[in-house]
């Protein structure tokens, strides 16, 4: 799941750095992800994993790192292939 998340971050997170160089707990916002990019990332994750983030999860901390995204997706029962 982590690889797929990383690929989506690379495509939609508009990071100035390569996501490969970041560990699972690195702060994506500190790495340069903007708010608007994080919305695109959120929508891309929903499409890729066929889930819908509830309102309570539409906040900054959920999309802060590869690990926090993975935890959120697992909480929503996303396919962990």
């Amino acid at each position, binding site marked *: 799941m982590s690889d797929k998340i990383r690929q989506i971050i690379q495509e939609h997170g*508009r990071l*100035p750095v390569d996501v490969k160089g970041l560990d699972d707990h690195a702060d994506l916002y500190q790495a340069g992800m*903007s*708010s*608007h990019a*994080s*919305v695109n990332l*959120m*929508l891309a994750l929903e499409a890729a994993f066929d889930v819908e*983030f509830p*309102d309570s999860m*539409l*906040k*900054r901390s959920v999309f802060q790192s590869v690990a926090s995204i993975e935890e959120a997706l697992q909480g929503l029962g996303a396919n962990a292939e």
Partner: protein
Amino acid sequence: MADFQPGTPEEAAFLAELIARRLLVPTGVPGVYGRGEDFERVREGFDALVTRIAAPDGAERLHFPPLLPRQQLEGSGYLKSFPHLAGSIFGFEGSEKDAIEQEERAVRHEDWSEHQVMTDLVLLPAACYPVYPAIAQRGALPAGGITIDPGAAYVFRHEPSGDPARLQMFHQREMVRFGEPDTVAEWRDAWRDRALKIFRRVGLEPQKEVATDPFFGRAGRMLAANQRAQELKFEVLIPIASPGPTAVASFNYHQDHFTHTFGIAMADGGVAHTACLGFGLERITLGLFHAHGFDIAAWPAKVTRELWP
């Protein structure tokens, strides 16, 4: 029409008094009013006060009509963040027969939208929007960045309301800063604190708050949560006629949203950020009438000296 939000009894009473005293002139559409002599004197007086206080910034004036090329709106992200507030201009391009049919429907106040097609223009949603593409055309920004004064432009928000402080078209007095991230963030914070002083000088009691824009939908909730967590938007609020204080100015740090959208960078290749501030001139005018009474001849000298030195 969009959902009409009725005013509270106090807002409705304040509006009725403004109309009775010919400060506002009703047009039949909620949120769209003519402005009377004294209303305009106060609005222009406050606008001029902002200009005097901003003078040391050495901002470059860059003014636009209250319209935006439709393609600029389409490229700005506005329709993603605020589709519910935008106003698009449509026009007639049909035949003589179509014109007759359109007129017949129109005189009966029936739906004649079938004969209207989208034009290349939309109503201006915020005074700073035309500034970004204009600056992008110039190329990279010099070290230290630039400050632009787009003046007080009429802007449109499609949100009919019975609260006189929620207008569909009003003057937004903006200033826009382009530059290195630190420079821009410091400018935004300095103006936020400067604004508190301006409001106190005209006898108002301002308070500042971290705020969010009225973003649309689920993506909007996420943007609002991000905006709040990063304190990207501050508002200054004053009492008008609503139950709580009303936002009359906002101080917005866009980070790289507009510089990324329009391809604006620093001359040394570094990342450029933007921030803007906006004074809602009609709301401030309403706040001044609410605080000092409807007769401007009876306002405290301390206030009138600031507005009309």
